[in-house]
């Protein structure tokens, strides 16, 4: 009994230590929102309106506000539409509402806002995604505009409700290359991370 109690105390204090560390890490990395879980349209609406309010509070420049909003929506809808998620709670059905597990972080310092999203991806889908992002990163703003035009003309709305324009739009809005990483999980799956940043002084 005593032993059990000790153990409980111990794991409890370990947990508290973890929370303190976690909090410190968030403060240190200036992360204002961290989420791991199901990404749905409801979550997208909640996070975007929350961030909108926060940006209004700090009286952020209107153009920057719009860019942050744009990138958030595209990142969150990317997860709910495109993540490879085989879990029981996942939904690929537009009529029932999409739901996929993902990671979402937003933070800011004096210079920029940074938005990071993460989701599962089947290893077989990595080469195509990598090629798409690398291609976008190799283009300048004029070329991105051109590619955007082409895609607008050629592509139809997919069965997942996407236009295939999300990454191009993010690259155009941020003016920065898309930073990404594939973290292997097992021989079939990986975790895809996408980091974008929006400069605070580039109100253009």
């Amino acid at each position, binding site marked *: 009994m005593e032993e059990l109690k000790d153990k409980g105390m111990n794991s409890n204090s370990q947990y508290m230590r973890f929370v303190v560390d976690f909090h410190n890490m968030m403060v240190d990395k200036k992360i204002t929102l961290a989420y791991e879980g199901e990404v749905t349209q409801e979550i997208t609406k909640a996070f975007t309106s929350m961030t909108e309010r926060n940006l209004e509070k700090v009286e952020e420049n209107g153009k920057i506000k719009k860019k942050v909003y744009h990138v958030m929506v*595209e990142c969150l809808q990317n997860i709910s539409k495109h993540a490879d998620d085989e879990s029981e709670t996942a939904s690929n059905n537009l009529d029932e509402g999409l739901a996929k597990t993902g990671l979402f972080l937003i933070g800011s310092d004096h210079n920029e806002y940074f938005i990071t999203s993460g989701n599962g991806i089947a290893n077989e889908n990595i080469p195509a995604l990598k090629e798409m992002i690398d291609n976008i990163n190799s283009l300048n703003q004029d070329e991105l505009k051109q590619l955007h035009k082409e895609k607008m003309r050629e592509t139809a709305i997919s069965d997942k409700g996407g236009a295939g324009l999300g990454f191009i739009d993010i690259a155009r809005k941020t003016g920065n290359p898309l930073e990404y990483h594939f973290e292997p999980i097992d021989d079939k799956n990986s975790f895809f991370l996408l980091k974008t940043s929006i400069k605070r002084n580039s109100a253009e």
Partner: protein
Amino acid sequence: MEALIYKKTEDTPAIHLDKAAGIFEFSGKSLPEDVTSFYGPVFDWITAYGEDANESSKFVFKMTYFNTASSKIILDILMRLETLHEDGKKHNCRVALRRR
């Protein structure tokens, strides 16, 4: 013909398409999860309107935000309006885009 009227929500725009009143307007935010089903009735309405359009109509888009999927759909709507304008020798269809 019946008017198509939607109130705006957090992720869909207000839509007011009313032939009798001569009001054709889209305003607000557009980021629905399923753009095809949300805008389906709009395309149906425009098709029906094309059959018996007013002599002139001014479509106004006052969108404060739209996601990439909505941008594609809005372009499709504009193209349909262009066809309506070109097809109908009798009706003149104008489009006004207002950015906030």
